């Protein structure tokens, strides 16, 4: 079943087209990421799902029901806010039980449910504290428990890990993923961190300027970027300009090539090759990043550290399998 459906949805603020003709279909139980730079429309899409914004055009369905005009409090959708938005005057337990309280669930029952939710996010026995007494990571877990206790059909997460430090972020990525698997709830999360999107999501929608640039599995988005924007934003694909594409026999005007698909040696059978000069290199731990200048186009190569790095200025031949070269749609 389709959890969230966007049919040509737009949200314009005056002349600003925050969301402009977005089509997407999120399946039930899917872990879906909306990836893009700030101002790309991804957060507005999330707010359209939550009901904080109404579309100026198009149609939204949540589990088959029309969502336009339905206020946030009548949607079976809950949000984990970027700043967590915990209620400062309520204890952690009352924060988590809030959704049940306003729905009229009895005191004992909601206390039990809230305690279970807190245990699920590994914060048992924190119920009597206040939000101000918790660390950022703990507050994030409380926000998660407060949303999940309502058993939403779709959980929306707005930059859920943005405020956490690197170590905590990696730990939470794994926890979120396993939580989503065990609960089977549809998760939709917004992020500007491509690593986060690639490692957690089942599918990714890459946003730019209010539009979806590409929608696909992490592997597709990473290996076969459809546009130059995606190639540039998701990781660091090389974009080959038209004249190089022509020489290599690609019909489109641009093509992408992953740095790790290139080797610094003469071509083997069937492989394509280009020659240029080394313009820079740097040591990245697992690989050496070598930048090769091919007729003005800078092409990055991820070269294993076991291989010798050629000197800057020396001529090299780079080669790669023909199927590693992915034609792109447009400029």
């Amino acid at each position, binding site marked *: 079943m389709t959890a969230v459906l966007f049919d040509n949805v737009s949200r314009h603020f005056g002349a600003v087209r925050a969301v402009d003709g977005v089509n997407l279909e999120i399946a039930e139980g899917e872990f879906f990421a909306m990836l893009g730079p700030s101002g790309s429309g991804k957060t507005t899409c999330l707010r359209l799902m939550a009901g904080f914004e109404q579309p100026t055009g198009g149609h939204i369905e949540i589990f088959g029901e029309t969502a336009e005009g339905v206020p946030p409090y009548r949607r079976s959708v809950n949000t984990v806010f970027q700043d967590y938005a915990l209620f400062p005057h309520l204890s952690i337990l009352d924060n988590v039980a*809030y959704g049940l309280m306003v729905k009229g669930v009895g005191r004992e029952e909601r206390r039990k449910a809230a305690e279970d939710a807190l245990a699920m996010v590994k914060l048992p026995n924190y119920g009597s504290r206040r939000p101000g007494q918790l660390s950022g990571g703990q507050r994030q877990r409380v926000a998660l428990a407060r949303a999940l206790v309502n058993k939403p059909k779709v959980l929306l997460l707005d930059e859920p890990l943005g405020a956490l430090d690197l170590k905590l972020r990696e730990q939470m990525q794994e926890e979120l993923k396993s939580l989503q698997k065990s609960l089977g709830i549809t998760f939709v999360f917004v992020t500007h961190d491509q690593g986060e999107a690639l490692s957690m999501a089942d599918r990714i929608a890459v946003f730019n300027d209010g539009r979806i640039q590409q929608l696909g599995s992490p592997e597709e988005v990473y290996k076969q970027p459809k546009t130059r924007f995606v190639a540039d934003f998701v990781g660091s694909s090389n974009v080959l300009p038209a004249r190089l594409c022509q020489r290599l026999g690609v019909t489109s005007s641009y093509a992408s090539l992953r740095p790790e698909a290139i080797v610094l040696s003469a071509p083997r059978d069937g492989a394509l090759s280009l020659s240029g000069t080394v313009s820079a290199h740097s040591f990245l731990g697992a690989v050496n990043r070598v930048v090769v200048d091919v007729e003005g186009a800078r092409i990055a190569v991820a070269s294993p550290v076991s291989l010798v790095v050629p000197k800057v200025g020396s001529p090299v031949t780079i080669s790669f399998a023909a199927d590693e070269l992915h034609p792109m749609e447009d400029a």
Partner: protein
Amino acid sequence: MRSDRLNRSPLGLKIAAAAGLAFMHVPILLIFLYAFTTEEKSYQFPPPGLTTQWLAVAWNRPDVWAALTLSVKVASIATAVALVLGTLCAAAVSQTRFFGRETISLLVILPIALPGIITGIALRSAFSMAEIPFSFWTIVLGHATFCIVVVYNNAVARFRRISGSLVEASMDLGADGFQTFRYIILPNIGTALLAGGMLAFALSFDEVIVTTFTAGQQSTLPIWMLEELIRPRQRPVTNVVAMIVVLVTFLPILGAYYLTRDGDQIAGAGK
């Protein structure tokens, strides 16, 4: 950290500060003292004798009671009106963006910046132009103009500290507008409203200027006192009433001070 050495101040400054404070507060103590004097026609110092008879006399004067009841009624209703309108206005100005927002904010605050006499004259001419007879309600209206400002100022400062996403979070968790107001907004602005209400009450209770322009034949307590000072009869009764006014206005202001101070800590624990 402040060191002890920095805390020490010259003796001259200490004396000057003490003298300044005494200048402000000793006259108030004299008011209290004259409430117990045996001399009823003039304020003679030192009082020839002390008595508590004026408390009983004041208690038995119906005009004191009439003025006191009127003042309490006016202050209560003006405060109630100000609480509702001031809160609504503060919510609108701080939670939403619309054309003319800053202008409205300025216009709401203006009555307290304007001299009372201007407000008074303006209201008086407006009332007579609209042929509204002076009554209890014209006094309430006059007082509400500046009471709203006090409530608005308190509420708007607190609203600004409430993160906008708190309201969204509440709605997201299934609370409608009324529930969100009751469970999220009110607890967060409650102390600010109480403080603003108390200040508004105190302001209204001892207001003279606007009242003289908007009252008909009725006397609120401050106006009654003004009239009473001119008459050289049972003067200490005025002092007894003055003592009561000090208590009635000072206690709410003190309360407001402690409430908002406390509120800072609650709101500060927010994010």
